[in-house]
């Protein structure tokens, strides 16, 4: 029983970082219908930027994180403005290939600048500091990840639901021609969603960096986050979050009871199953345009 609860707790903790990556992908997908495969690497370069500030320039930690977030937002906006917007008559496939290209370039840049070996992130909380409640073991970092993820989700929810900009984003998602015709700058909305998404990814990256810090650190969370987003239907923010937590928990239970070797494969088995049974995702809402 203790094992079971322990697995659930660890599953929720790891699910939080999947949830953040999944959210980041959904935010972009909803406005531009492009699964952004550069998501992980955008978070990666933002994390390494924070590390560089901390180690090379001895920036105070809060300032370094703040600057890393600003960097992430600017990076997202820049990529949309300078690369994706320039694509001439883009189709979805072309856009996806562009994001894969961006991914490769950033990965190469980071490997070249910082080297491909494991780095140590001077994070205030070490990866092994932990709480023990009863017999349940949970690291402080996991608690921090969970709390940050929940906070960020609430902020995003409030933003999309109640702010004027959030409403404009929703309008752009549902009908971009109509959005333009009521005077919404849809280009700017698109750029902004890339910025927000990049920021959410960077938060995930920074929370992962104390445990693993090398150029491939975001590969696994990005794929799992994408898996969660697909399971959630690609267009639903809460869907992606719930699916991410489900994935995290199932993964841990599978690892604990069945096979630890196949633990990280199980996520993809689940995707295959979901796509076979309910291809539109577990929580999708579809915008069907009547003619």
């Amino acid at each position, binding site marked *: 029983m203790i094992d079971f609860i322990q697995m659930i707790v660890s599953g929720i903790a790891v699910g939080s970082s999947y949830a953040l990556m999944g959210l980041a992908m959904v935010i972009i997908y909803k406005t531009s219908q492009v699964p952004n495969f550069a998501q992980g690497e955008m978070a990666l370069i933002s994390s390494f930027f924070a590390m560089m500030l901390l180690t090379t320039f001895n920036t105070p930690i809060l300032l370094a994180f703040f600057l890393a977030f600003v960097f992430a937002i600017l990076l997202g906006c820049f990529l949309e403005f300078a690369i994706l917007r320039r694509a001439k008559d883009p189709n979805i496939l072309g856009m996806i290939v562009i994001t894969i290209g961006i991914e490769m370039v950033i990965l190469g840049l980071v490997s070249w600048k910082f080297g491909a070996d494991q780095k140590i992130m001077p994070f205030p909380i070490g990866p092994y500091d932990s709480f023990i409640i009863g017999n349940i073991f949970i690291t402080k970092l996991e608690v921090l990840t969970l709390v940050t993820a929940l906070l960020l989700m609430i902020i995003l929810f409030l933003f999309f639901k109640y702010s004027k900009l959030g409403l404009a984003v929703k309008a752009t998602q*549902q009908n971009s021609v109509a959005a333009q015709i*009521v005077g919404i700058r849809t280009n700017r909305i698109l750029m902004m969603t890339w910025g927000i998404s990049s920021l959410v990814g960077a938060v995930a990256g920074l929370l992962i960096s104390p445990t693993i810090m090398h150029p491939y650190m975001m590969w696994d969370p990005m794929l799992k986050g994408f898996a969660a987003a697909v399971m959630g239907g690609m267009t639903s923010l809460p869907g992606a979050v719930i699916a991410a937590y489900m994935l995290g928990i199932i993964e841990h239970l599978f690892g604990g009871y069945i096979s630890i070797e196949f633990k990280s494969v199980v996520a993809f088995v689940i995707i295959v199953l979901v796509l076979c049974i309910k291809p539109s995702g577990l929580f999708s809402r579809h915008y*069907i345009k009547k003619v």
Partner: protein
Amino acid sequence: MDFPFFLINNLSISFGGIKALQDISFTMNKGEIFSVIGPNGAGKTTLFNCISGLYKPNQGNIRFNGESIENKKPDAIARMGIARTFQNIELFSHMNTMENIMLGRHIHMKTGVFKGMLMWGRPSFAAQEEIQHRKKVEQIIDFLELQNVRDKFVGALPYGTQKLIELGRALALEPSLLLLDEPCAGMNSEEKQDMIFWIKDIQTDLGISILLIEHDMKMVMDISNRVLAINFGESITLGTPEEVQQNKEVLKAYIGEEE
């Protein structure tokens, strides 16, 4: 300096080999209802898309209050005071009527994210602004008699009602020029009659100039101040409804050659 309210000069656009519009020119006076008629495929909607910035014309000028708008983006044109509706409705189908019309207020809202966070209690700037916009939206809902669908998702509503909501959203922009693309398509005669009254009210009470595309000749002749007839992208004639009705070319375009 005296310039016409709205002017189109030698407007042409082609798609591949098809000349959708050729040398269309006209001027519109303030306060006028100006109709564009023509058979299917004549280029009427293309003309609207050029005006609202969705298409970039190959040549020619469009001037609104003396300012050139042919190279502006749709959102910039909307902010200048040109609103429109579409032949095939373009609504935000997963929002309710209120939210759809409220989005028409977007260009008039000043509250940003940070001011919005300071929305504590009624007297704050953000709250005051919200109240003002909601009042305006309620006025439009009352005007178009949309009270009973106020909180319903628009995607599931009947076609005629959706057309009205689109009109409401366009009115929420408080435009000085309103483009209506077949506002009566798919309506029964009673609904059409209502629409005719509303269009007249919009002209007289709200003082908005209207550029109208419509196939119902009785309605066009009834409410228009002037009519432009086009066919195959070229203008046939321009004049008062009576003059256009008498025009041989127009009859030919609609009914065919006399034997």
